[in-house]
C-alpha cells in the first residue's frame, strides 16, 4: 500500500544486491534508526531505557548470535546462556586485568573468549548432527555454569561469588557501574548492537553466510559444491559465540550491574532460543521481533493488567508468561513455523501487492 516501486530499477549489481533494495524500506529503516537514536533517549524515562530498551537490545544481539548458528547454519544450540556467561566473565576479568582500557573495547574483546570456546565445543558438530548436537551445547552450558561457581579466579575470589560491575567511563562519561546514566548505557548498547548487526548482515549476504545456509539446507550437496564442513560450521560457531559473548558482557555491564552464575543458566538459553524461534529462525529482523516479544510480554502483563482492572502478583505474571509463551510457541510452530519474521514478510508482501491479495 505504501510501496511505490514503479521506477525503482537497478542499473548495477551493487544496487541490486543492497540490503534494502526498495526505497520505502530504506526510508523505514532510517526512521527506525532516528527513533532509536534520538526519540527513545529523549522521550524514554529511566525505567524504559533500563528495564526495557537496554535488555531488549542485548537479548536481540544474543538472539542474532543464536540465529547465526541455528537459523543460518542449522546447528541447534542449547548453550546460549553459557556462552553469554563466558562473555560476561571474560569482560569482568579484562576489566580487572586492564582497568585503564576503554570499557567498550573490553566488551568487544570479551566476545573472542566466547568465540574460542565456541570453536572448541563446535568441533563435535563435524561428526554429529541435529539433536545429538544439542547435547554438546548442553555440555558446554552446564560446564560453563559449573566453572562460574567453582573457579573463584573468574569472580576475583569475591566472598559473594558474584561479579560486581565497577564504574568505568569513556570520554568523561560514566558508562558502567551504579552511577552510570541509563541514557549513556543505552547509547553504548545501541551502537554496539547496530554495528554488529550490520557486520553480521554483511557476512550473511556474502560467501560465508551462503556456505552456512548451504550446510543448513543440504549438507551433502554443500560438500559436493566445495564447502568444507569444518570451515563452515566452526565459523558459524565462532561468530555465534562471539555475538553471544558480547551480548553476555553487555547484559552484565550495562543491564544487570552485578551477576551471579545463575544469571546464565540453561533458562537463559531457552529464553534466547524462544526469541529466535518466535522471531523466526534465519532472520535478523526476526531476532529483534522475538527479543522484543518475549522480553516485553511479561512487562506488558505486569503493567497492562492492572490498567484493565486486573492487578496480578508478580509470580502469577511469571507463570502466565510461561504459559503464554509456551502456547504461542506451539501455535507459531503450527501456523507459521518461520515466526514473526515470516509474518512481517507476508505483511510486507501484502503491502507491496496491495490491493491484490497476491502478485
Amino acid at each position, binding site marked *: 500500500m505504501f510501496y511505490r516501486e514503479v521506477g525503482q530499477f537497478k542499473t548495477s549489481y551493487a544496487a541490486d544486491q543492497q540490503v534494502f533494495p526498495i526505497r520505502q524500506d530504506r526510508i523505514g529503516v532510517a526512521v527506525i534508526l532516528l527513533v532509536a537514536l534520538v526519540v527513545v533517549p529523549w522521550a524514554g524515562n529511566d525505567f524504559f531505557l533500563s528495564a526495557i530498551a537496554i535488555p531488549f537490545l542485548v537479548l536481540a544481539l544474543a538472539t542474532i548470535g543464536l540465529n547465526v548458528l541455528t537459523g543460518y547454519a542449522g546447528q*541447534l544450540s542449547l548453550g546460549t546462556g553459557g556462552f553469554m556467561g563466558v562473555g560476561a566473565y571474560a569482560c569482568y576479568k579484562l576489566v580487572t586485568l586492564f582497568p585503564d582500557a576503554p570499557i567498550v573495547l573490553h566488551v568487544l574483546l570479551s566476545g573472542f573468549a566466547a568465540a574460542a570456546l565456541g570453536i572448541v565445543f563446535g568441533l*563435535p558438530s563435524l*561428526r*554429529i548432527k*541435529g*539433536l*545429538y548436537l*544439542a*547435547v*554438546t551445547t*548442553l*555440555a558446554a552450558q*552446564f*560446564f560453563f*555454569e*559449573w566453572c562460574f*561457581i*567453582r*573457579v573463584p579466579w573468574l569472580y576475583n575470589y569475591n566472598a559473594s561469588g558474584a561479579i560486581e560491575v565497577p564504574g568505568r567511563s569513556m570520554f568523561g562519561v560514566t558508562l558502567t557501574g551504579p552511577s552510570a546514566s541509563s541514557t549513556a548505557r543505552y547509547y553504548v548498547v545501541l551502537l554496539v548492537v547496530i554495528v554488529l548487526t550490520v557486520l553480521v548482515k554483511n557476512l550473511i549476504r556474502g560467501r560465508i553466510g551462503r556456505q552456512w545456509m548451504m550446510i543448513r539446507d543440504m549438507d*551433502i*550437496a554443500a560438500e559436493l559444491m566445495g564447502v568444507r564442513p569444518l570451515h563452515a560450521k566452526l565459523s558459524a560457531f565462532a561468530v555465534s559465540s562471539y555475538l553471544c559473548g558480547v551480548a553476555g558482557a553487555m547484559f552484565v555491564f550495562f543491564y544487570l550491574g552485578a551477576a551471579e552464575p545463575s544469571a546464565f543458566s*540453561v533458562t537463559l538459553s*531457552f529464553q534466547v*532460543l*524462544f526469541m529466535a*524461534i518466535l522471531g523466526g529462525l534465519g532472520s535478523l529482523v526476526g531476532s529483534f521481533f522475538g527479543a522484543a516479544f518475549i522480553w516485553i510480554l511479561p512487562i506488558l502483563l505486569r503493567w497492562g493488567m492492572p490498567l484493565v482492572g486486573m492487578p496480578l502478583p508478580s*509470580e*502469577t505474571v*511469571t*507463570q*502466565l*508468561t*510461561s*504459559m*503464554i*509463551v*509456551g*502456547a*504461542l*510457541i*506451539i501455535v507459531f*510452530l*503450527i501456523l507459521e*513455523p518461520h515466526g514473526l519474521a515470516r509474518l512481517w514478510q507476508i505483511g510486507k508482501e501484502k503491502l507491496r501487492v496491495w490491493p491484490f491479495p497476491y502478485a
Partner: protein
Amino acid sequence: MDFLHDILLRPFMDMAAQPDFFIQVIWEGFVAGILYALIALGFVLIYKASGVFNFAQGIMVVFAGLTLVGLHEKGVPAWLALILTIGVMALLAVCIERFVMRKLVAQPDIILLMSTIGMTYFLVGLGEFVFGGEPKQMITSELGLPTGSTAVEFGERGLIIFQHIDIAAAVIAIVMVAALAVFFNRTRIGRALRAVADDHQAALSVGISLNQIWAIVWFAAGIVALTTGIMWGARSDVSFALEIVALKALPVLILGGFTSIPGAIVGGLIIGIGEKIGEIYWGPLVGGGIESWLAYMIALIFLLFRPQGLFGERIIERI
C-alpha cells in the same frame, strides 16, 4: 606428577581402601541411573512411535508429581489422588495429541522438538499457576511406599545403607520395564505401536488410527512420568529443579540410542553410576560439583567415537 597421581591412581586407591563406601556410591549411582533411565524410557516410547524428540518428558515428571501431591494437599485421599493424576495424564496425552501432534504431522524433527519445548514452558507455567512454585514433600507413606532404611554390614567394619524407597524404586522400575515389554510384545495395541515405528501404513492396516496410537503413547509416557515423579519425589522432593535434572535423559539417550528400551536402561545406569563415581572420586580434584556436566561430557566423548550410539546401527547416507 602429583597431579597425574591424583587423577590416575589416587581415586582407585580410595575405592580399594573403602570398598563398602565404593559399593554405596555405586548403589547411589544405580538408583539415580534408574531414575534417569525411567525418564529416558518415557522418551523412547514417544520417539519410537512418532519420531518426536520429547523435551517435555522432564516436565511431565514434575507435573505428574505436583498434581499428585497438590491434589492430596487439597484434601483428596492418596489413592484417589493417584487415580485422578492418572486421569490428568490421560487428559494431557489426549490434549497433546489433539492440539499439537495432529497439527504438526510430517513437520521436520526440529519443529517437533521445539513444540515440546513449548509444551515444557506451558506446563511449567500451568503447574506453578495451579499448585504454586515452591518445592513439595512427596506423599510417600500415604501411597504405601516403604520408608526407612536397612544397613548391611560389609566386610569387617563396613556398612552399606539401603534406603527402602530406593529398593522400591528399583523394583518398580524393573516391573515397569517388564510390563512395557509384555505390552509391546503381547498385546495388539503394543504390536501396533511397534509397527508404527517401522511403517505408518502397516499400523493403519492393524485398524488403529495413528492419532489413537499417539494418544496412547503419550499416555504411556505420562504413566512412566508419574512413576518417575513419585520415586524421585520420595528421594528428594517435588520441585521444578527436577526439570533440569531431567535434561540428563539426553546423554542417556545418546548412549542408549533413541529407540531402544534396553538402551535407555543401560544408558541410564552408565550415566548414573558414572557420574556418581566421577563426582565422589574425581570431583574434589577440581572443586566438586562436576555431576552437573559430567554426564554430558561422557555422552559427548562417546558420541565422537560412536555417533550412532551403543545400540544404533551405522547410518549409510544416500543421495
